[in-house]
């Protein structure tokens, strides 16, 4: 961690690994990781919904933890490994969660979708066979206003089925 003055506008070099690629960028200490991803690195797949940690649209994985990137400073990403929605799909394909969201019609407007997929991918890493209740509890940090969550919960459970079958094969 670099020692910085949060009020300074002097930019700081941040070195991180984002979606497996080494990345170096200049950030003001007051800029959130969300801002850095979107405005400095042009990685706009991570969405802004509330910027106060209550909607989950900006979920990314940093250092193995699911975080709201609006509540993390860009400089805190120094030395960290980060996964964003842009790093979820394998090259040339889709993550089983992405396929399940498409097939289950688990999105309407789609603004919350990247956050849900990043969040759900972490759930399935920790729990390969979640119950409906476990899916709902895990995803309660992600707000969706369009779907009523029904099809999202089904998509996550179906993706978990597909991924388990895939592992057994």
């Amino acid at each position, binding site marked *: 961690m670099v020692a910085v003055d949060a009020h300074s506008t002097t930019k700081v070099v941040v070195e991180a690994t984002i979606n497996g690629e080494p990345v170096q960028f200049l950030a003001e200490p007051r800029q959130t990781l969300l801002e850095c991803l979107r405005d400095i690195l042009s990685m706009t797949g991570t969405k802004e919904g509330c910027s106060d940690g209550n909607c989950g649209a900006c979920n990314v994985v940093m250092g193995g933890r699911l975080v709201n990137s609006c509540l993390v400073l860009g400089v805190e990403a120094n030395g960290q490994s980060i996964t964003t929605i842009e790093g979820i799909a394998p090259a040339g394909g889709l993550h089983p969660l992405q396929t399940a*969201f498409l*097939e289950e019609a688990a999105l309407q407007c*789609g603004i919350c979708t990247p956050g849900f997929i990043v969040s759900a991918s972490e759930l399935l890493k920790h729990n390969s066979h979640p119950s409906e209740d476990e899916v709902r509890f895990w995803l309660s940090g992600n707000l969706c206003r369009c779907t009523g969550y029904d099809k999202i919960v089904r998509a996550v459970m179906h993706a978990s089925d597909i991924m388990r079958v895939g592992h057994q094969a």
Partner: protein
Amino acid sequence: MTTTIDRPTGENAATRVISANDGANIIISHGDYNVVGTRPVRHDGVDKVTGRATYGGDTRLNGLLFGKVLRSPHAHARIVSIDTSKARALDGVHAVVTAADLPTAEDREVDLGEGGGNLKHMSDNILASDKVLYKGHAVAAVAAVNVHVAEAACKLIEVVYEALPAVVDLKDAIAPGATLIHPEITRKSLGKDTGIHSNITKHARHQMGDPEAAFAKADVIVERDFTTTMVHQGYIEPTNATAMWNQDGKITIWSSTQGAFAVRDSTAEILGVPVSQIKAIPQEIGGGFGGKINVYLEPVAALLSRESGRPVKLIMSRAEVFQATGPAPGSWSKIKFGATKAGHLVAMTADLYMESGAYPGSDSGAAMLCIFAPYKCDDMRVDGYDVLTNRPKTAPYRAPGAPQAAFASEQVIDELAEKLGMDPIEFRLLNAAHEGTRLVQGPLHKKVGGIEVLNATKTHAHYLAPLGTPSPSTKRGRGVAYGYWFNIGLASSVSISVNADGSVTLIEGSTDIGGSRASIAMQAAEILGVRAEDVRPSVVDTDSIGFTGVTGGSRTTFATGLAAIEAARSVVVQMKARVAKVWSVAPDDVSYDHGSFHAGTHSMTFKEAAHHIEDTGGPITGTGNVDPQGHGGAFASIIVDVEVDVETGKTQILEWTIVQDAGKAIHPSYVEGQLQGASAQGIGWALSEEYFMNSKGEMANTSLLDYRLPTAFDVPMINTVIVEVPNPGHPFGVRGVGEASIVPPMAAVANAIHNAIGVRMQALPMNPGAVLH
């Protein structure tokens, strides 16, 4: 509800279908369709699950500046002076604007197709000129190199206010002697200017028969009043706009909107420029529900761009979204219904007060059209009142006005059924409006599916199942409610071009808020006899397609779908002429059926015919321009089981079923999605959501932590039944599904709570505190 997976394999894996809930649906329409009624993957799906889709906030331009709006800390105050000099002097600031930069707005009504209003009020709501009328009212705006500098500059703007008393609550606003929010406005009542200065700006009435006399025929009368609080649409993507005012006077706007043409036209009016000067480019939109029809930021971004000479982007914070965009009105409803012992409704009256916030114009008009529409009764009267308060100017929210009215009326219906000892669905069926029933405003119901919806509700496994055993210290109850929304038509334009490989491109002006690219493309595919995947739909800017109304009023799949059908039919006619050339026959001798052209022994698929367009006359484009009048109203019902904790007052939703007449579900998954999404919004409106205002008109819960939208953990799986009673005004029978579904939920929950604990809930939200009291 069971879900079966028919998982495709091979190259089409990403473009096929699953999640069939068709077993639960009641299909009364009879059509032999190849595409309509199937569940293809939506065309914009991959972009949206990978983060590649570009929403308004994702707009990136060379030289882009970032803006911030300075907002009033007072709910009601006169602006004495604004000094922007210190803000302008700050390093990195490129522009500062106030209402002085807007043209002087005329005091006249403007018609914007949907909505519109008084131009001076619209302009003052964009940037306050003489008075601020709610906390969060825009006063000035800054464009700077980044948002942090813009925020710092806003703090340097010195505004002197003279505070005025805030009128926060609807009942206070209509009390005698209340502070007048617009002292110049006089009440319009029953079409006449009364000359009375009042916070009640409009009073209207629909009446049929003589309800006061008809109450004498009633054996049972229930009279109650109900209140609901202001709530927000709660779209997850904050309101945003980016604009470039070029040196040639041309203005380009990128924003998330329900209607690019509404953005163009209202921005033109407010800025006093011709519509030909403005191009609105709609970006992907992250939810709207009626709240992204009005412009808030677009004219401000344009002014900042004119002054700075650079493109400017504005994005609201969540607190700004709550305080400075248009929420749904709170309401006060006084209801009196009477019925005979045999269960016939004989008299119905309602007085509906709806707040409009800072400027005139609320939802009482639509509420008046919906409140009695589910029932047949000869003697009815409804009066509607729009009421000013020092709160943000209200805006449409999904079936605007109807849910507040139904919260009141459907509880009174429930109480009548209880007093008569009748099953609540049987009572509704006995009185249900149908084709030919006269509405209180005069016209007759066209073909509607209300009775079919009620029958599907009555026979649903959920309604027949026992309630189950409550947990300790809880009580269980079941409630039902029923509601109506009229749906709308309005103008739409679609253009379809044929590619040589047999695919087609479809260009439309309807922004896609929840899968309408798919539902519109599928209708074109059905007519053309091609697959949904062979149609490539694009939502384009206002320079690239004919005028198209907003994505709202449940009109898009209906009206823009009709335009797509018309465009596809035009393509078929043109293709027949080309095929006739190839075969050397007359065009009239060529027939077309499910994707194949025929003439005598000749036969050719659409794809084969498309190969010939280059050598038979060049490009083929079909257009469809419609302004349909054949929209059809929709009924919806809810069955809900709740468990109420009598110690904490918490209400848990155990089981939820929604039944709705879709006319025809083009893509059933997205119809189910509308029903499920509206249900969850209804659960939030019922149990937890409210604008918590203090006496100074300050909203105390401006974050999504404190304004409690339902989470995945707060709602159960939502059973859906799509009833299909086709709308005769559409070739496939489409009615529109986005809104009827939010009309009955709050009343259904209230009726379930009453069933559980024996208390009528006369106010929203029914949070633990309210339930305990």
